[in-house]
């Protein structure tokens, strides 16, 4: 925790929020019973709380979470941390603006990527929430090889990564933002898919508006 100042969210509240997000992802069908993981940086520190590996994700409780340092050493908690912890740690190392990371298996987002489609600015949310989406080539889940790739793509400033043959990573300044990124990816993918399946290339919002948003949100 930061040494001084107003503590907006306690660690206990942070842990509860991680569990809420994890359960919401499960309920929305963005992760399966054992899939996906969510983490949040302890404000002002080099540590983060992450969901455990190998337990049912629809009922994760705060006591199940594990606190790690950026090298993966267990600081607190009893369960096995998500095997994807190297990926989360890699993001926190290169992105000081990111305080929460969500990894889910968004089926439509992944399906479009597998079919070779890129997400388009079909809505204001697609531009404002997602901002920049990168596609990361396949590396086996939980490996340091994947973590290195993620580090490279996260360093571009992207808010969302689509992991080929795997899933998505959503980043945010806080948990709600990361959750919103993960959900928006899927919303946009579904909308784009519906249009495509009805035989129409979906129109995008005017380029001028996109540029304006980009400028407004200082997106390179």
């Amino acid at each position, binding site marked *: 925790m930061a040494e001084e100042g107003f503590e907006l969210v306690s660690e206990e509240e942070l842990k509860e929020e991680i569990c809420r997000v994890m359960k919401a992802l499960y309920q929305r069908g963005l992760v399966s019973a*054992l899939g996906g993981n969510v983490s949040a940086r302890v404000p002002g520190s080099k540590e983060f709380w992450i969901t455990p*590996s*190998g*337990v*049912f994700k629809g*009922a994760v409780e705060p*006591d*199940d979470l*594990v606190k790690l340092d950026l090298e*993966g*050493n*267990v600081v607190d*908690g*009893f*369960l*096995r*941390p998500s*095997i994807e912890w190297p990926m989360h740690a890699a993001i926190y190392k290169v992105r000081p603006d990111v305080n929460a990371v969500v990894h889910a298996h968004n089926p439509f987002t992944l399906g479009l990527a597998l079919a070779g489609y890129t997400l388009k600015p079909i809505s204001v949310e697609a531009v404002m929430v997602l901002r920049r989406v990168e596609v990361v080539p396949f590396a*086996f889940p*939980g*490996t*340091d*090889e994947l973590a290195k790739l993620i580090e490279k793509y996260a360093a571009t400033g992207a808010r969302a990564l689509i992991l080929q043959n795997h899933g998505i990573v959503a980043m945010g300044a806080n948990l709600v933002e990361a959750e919103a990124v993960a959900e928006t990816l899927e919303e946009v993918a579904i909308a784009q898919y519906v249009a495509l399946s009805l035989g129409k290339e979906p129109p995008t919002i005017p380029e001028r508006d996109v540029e304006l948003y980009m400028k407004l949100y200082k997106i390179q």
Partner: protein
Amino acid sequence: MPEWFGYIGRILYVDLTHEKFEVRELDEKDVDMFVGGIVLATKIIAEEMDPRVDPFSPDNVLVFMTGPLTGTIVPCTGRYVVAAKSPLTLGWGEAHASGFWAVELKKAGFDGIVVKGRASNPVYLWIHDGEVEIRDASKLLGLTLPETELKIKEELGKDVRVAAIGPAGEKLVRYAAIANDITPDGPRVAGRTGMGAVMGSKNLKAIAVKGSGQIKIKDAKRVRSVLKRILPLVLSYPTTQIHAVYGTPGEIEEFYEYGDMPIKNFSLGEWDGIKNITAKRFKELGIVKEHRACWACPIHCWKYAEAGGAKGRAPEYETIAALGSLLMIDDPFYIEKANHLCNLYGMDTISAGVTIAWAIECFERGLITKEDTGGLELRWGDPDLALKLIEMIGKREGFGKLLGEGCMRASQVIGRGTERYCMHVKGLEMPMHDPRAFKGMGLQYATSNRGACHLQGLVFRIEQGQRVHDLRIYERPDRFDYKGKGRIVATMQLWHEVVESMVICKFIDIPPAHLAGLYSMVTGRRRNVQQLLQVGKRIFTLKRVFNVANGVRRKDDTLPERFLKEPLKEGGAKGQVVELEPMLKEYYEFMGWDEDGVPKKEVFQELGILELAKKLYPELG
């Protein structure tokens, strides 16, 4: 005095020479540094004995040790370890077994038993609710394992748990085993390195235990809740499911495909007989009847068999290979009978099979003659001969007397170049995984402290493609490649010290980080994977020093020439030999050993065991 959770907090020291007992409180500092199980046993041996003693002398110290998870609700924790100087390797000896005996020992009030000295007459120990008696065992002499257990139960009651030796242990067969939970459907066997012979040398026939105590758990509610949620995934691992249905023999076809299952003393890569000795075949023939389980085991890998009047534990994979394919015998009824015989006499089926295979190959090559064998003609594929030899070993009669010495010592006695066909490392006969099929296994065998050991590391699982994220083993190395194997083998060996310190079965694949958490919740002593790995390194290094004190150096970290120079001409590992030297170099660097295989002084300092190591090996300075 601390309140103990997981641990009982007391160790029983028995001096058989003077018929004295002493109960020592468990030291919190020891627990912090050495956790329990094999790790604590090693520390006690390092303190209590000179590693250079004759293993059959009263000065050898035999330690039975449970772990902090033994007998708890954590699954597959009915285990104990037993350690002493090995009469087979003249170096570090240890073996492990499951069942229920270890749980009963804790309920009877002890984490472990340290046995010193030698009784003047055959005795057995009776430990019940903190009380200890040395009882006369003269009536038990010569009895087989089941007979021994039944006789003790007649004396003490049918609900006592017994660990015992059979005739092989009494007669100092150098690979005699200690067995427990023998009747009606066992035994469970601590088979390797001749711990049964050490027990026999002490005139100690058995240890009977009974207790009504409880093993306290710091946060039982949470342990239960966590287990409930992690077990569904743990139990879904393919190997676990195969073990549940068929036991270890369920992997025979796969191991054969890899060229891993040895045939004809590791000289052939293909053999038609394999199809007749698969787990399915044992089931179809009605030999394997039912599933059995040890303490708190959801897997039930232990199978019960009945055939030809023999009843008891069905042969495991290692036994089917050692007494079957290794000898070119594909008759399942014979294998069941041979397994049963070994279990009556109480001896390691692996060492028995490898020693017999050595004799047959040497006979075939004309290096051993009928003059050596007492007129017996040795040949491959002869079940009657194999059964006869097993009996002769168990009774130490005729040629069996020599075979009971183990293949290394027997080949040294015979000479004439027979050493070349003896498949052992440091005197311990090779297990049934050919290192030419999994090269990391070659390094594991060459460096394991008890000699050719397949269990301390199980590196073939990594070479089959398993990742161990918690140990940062992410790569899936090609099984034939040797690069990068040094770190993987060393890491797995260190982790397996931790597994044997808990003590938990290797067949329940609880990931390391979950295991660290369970240990923390059971004992109230928080440990993470990295800290536990350090404990593993502490003890692996100490065992190495025990061996160094007995002359073990780099020259001994090797494999039989067959694996280094003779590629198989057929099968799944065709054309392969083990490139040991580059792997050893990488391994030594990782472990912090010098070029001759002696751990460097700074490693002992880092691990906080310099004084203990100097006690074992004063030359460390």
